[in-house]
């Protein structure tokens, strides 16, 4: 084994990520079906309206559980430090691929950290409101009234975020997808995108 590749994500990390991702996708698409009659056709793709009604909450629950695993694992690493603040202030440069003046990033850059917190927060509220919506005959009306607003609101935020996440991980930063699938990245990739982390793990 040369030093040409590094382990970026452990098996457990990848497993929980993809579990939550698949659940998220199912919940997102079926959520869209339940969101508006215009999108109800989507329910046909995912098993029909009644199935979607039955499975969406479970998908959501598993999404939240898997995310919970990720949260426990990563929450420590996702704390923002002073470099992250600079990074965030200069994130427009990052978007334009201008590296000059950008601080070196650790295992996760500030954008990823923000994504993490955003997804965690919305997942928490999605779960909370989702349970209320799951059992309308039990949940108090006032809770339901808040939930039906909170749930789609969080879902929209979450899905918007995931769209960005998806873009970043596929087209915008080649190599990312491989990292999450196979778990490894090239040293070059690591150096380029997460310099600080590269030095930490490679000891260079």
């Amino acid at each position, binding site marked *: 084994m040369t030093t040409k590749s590094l382990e970026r994500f452990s098996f457990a990390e990848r497993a929980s990520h993809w579990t939550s991702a698949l659940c998220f996708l199912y919940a997102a698409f079926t959520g869209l079906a339940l969101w508006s009659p215009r999108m109800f056709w989507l329910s046909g793709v995912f098993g029909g309206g009644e199935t979607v009604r039955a499975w969406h909450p479970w998908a959501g629950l598993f999404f939240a559980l898997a995310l919970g695993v990720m949260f426990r694992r990563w929450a420590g690493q996702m704390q923002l430090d002073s470099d992250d603040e600079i990074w965030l202030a200069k994130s427009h440069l990052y978007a334009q691929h201008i590296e000059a003046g950008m601080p070196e990033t650790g295992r996760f850059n500030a954008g990823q950290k923000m994504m993490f917190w955003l997804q965690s927060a919305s997942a928490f509220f999605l779960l909370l409101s989702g349970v209320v919506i799951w059992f309308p*005959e039990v949940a108090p009306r006032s809770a339901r009234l808040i939930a039906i607003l909170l749930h789609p*609101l969080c879902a929209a935020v979450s899905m918007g975020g995931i769209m960005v996440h998806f873009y970043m991980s596929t087209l915008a930063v080649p190599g990312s997808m491989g990292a999450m699938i196979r778990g490894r990245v*090239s040293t070059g990739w690591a150096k380029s995108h997460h310099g600080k982390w590269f030095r930490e793990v490679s000891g260079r």
Partner: protein
Amino acid sequence: MPATTVAKLVDTSLCIGCKACEVACQEWNDQEFTLGVFNNTYQTQPDLTPSFWNLIKFNEHVDDGVNSWLMAKYQCMHCADPGCLKACPAPGAIVQLPNGIVDFKQDNCIGCGYCITGCPFDVPRLSPTSKKVYKCSLCSDRVGAGMTPACIRTCPTNCLTFGSRTDLVQLAEIRTAELKEDGFKDAGIYDGPGVGGTNVMYVLKHASEPEKYGLPKDPRIPWTVSLWKGPLKWAANAAFLGTAVGAMLHYLKFGPKETHDDDEVA
């Protein structure tokens, strides 16, 4: 020719709490009769259920030593702007017929229960067994065959009347005037202007206090439901579209983020 909007008028001043309408509804809709639990009232059930769509609420009051026992029928109000329909995601599960009847088609219902939250009157009920939502259909089957709804057909005291909405509004106005003449200065019509008018209307002796009858004071589709099904929907749609377009433009302009150290590519 546009269909006549049909309506039901509940003249609470004529209700004697005989519960014929409750049973007529059960009987016509082949609902199973169940046993009740004693709860210190004459009211049949504490609330509507998936198989009990029409409940007389027995409201007891004593004001200044004078008893009153205000009975009011409680069922789907067949709103002109139905909150249930607004909240429903499943096409065809809740339909608003040209005659104004808001009907639930259980074949299309997915049991999400959004209608329960959307309803300002808290009427639809989710069946735990069939996982579908049920409520008064205003006997759309009977009305379709030229018959009056079962509850109205059986009402002995003319507390319930069925007809075109315009006619019933007139009748309600006449009754209100009569009640005022009889000394009920607060008499009035309750027809939910906040939901575009309901096709089930009430004549109340104490119109400024509908809560006395167990009716919500100023029924409106909950603002969260309106926000959810209105601005939020559009904002979210715009945000999704914006994100997607943004990503595309970003890629076209900046392309992918390059990795520098080619030699070390795995």
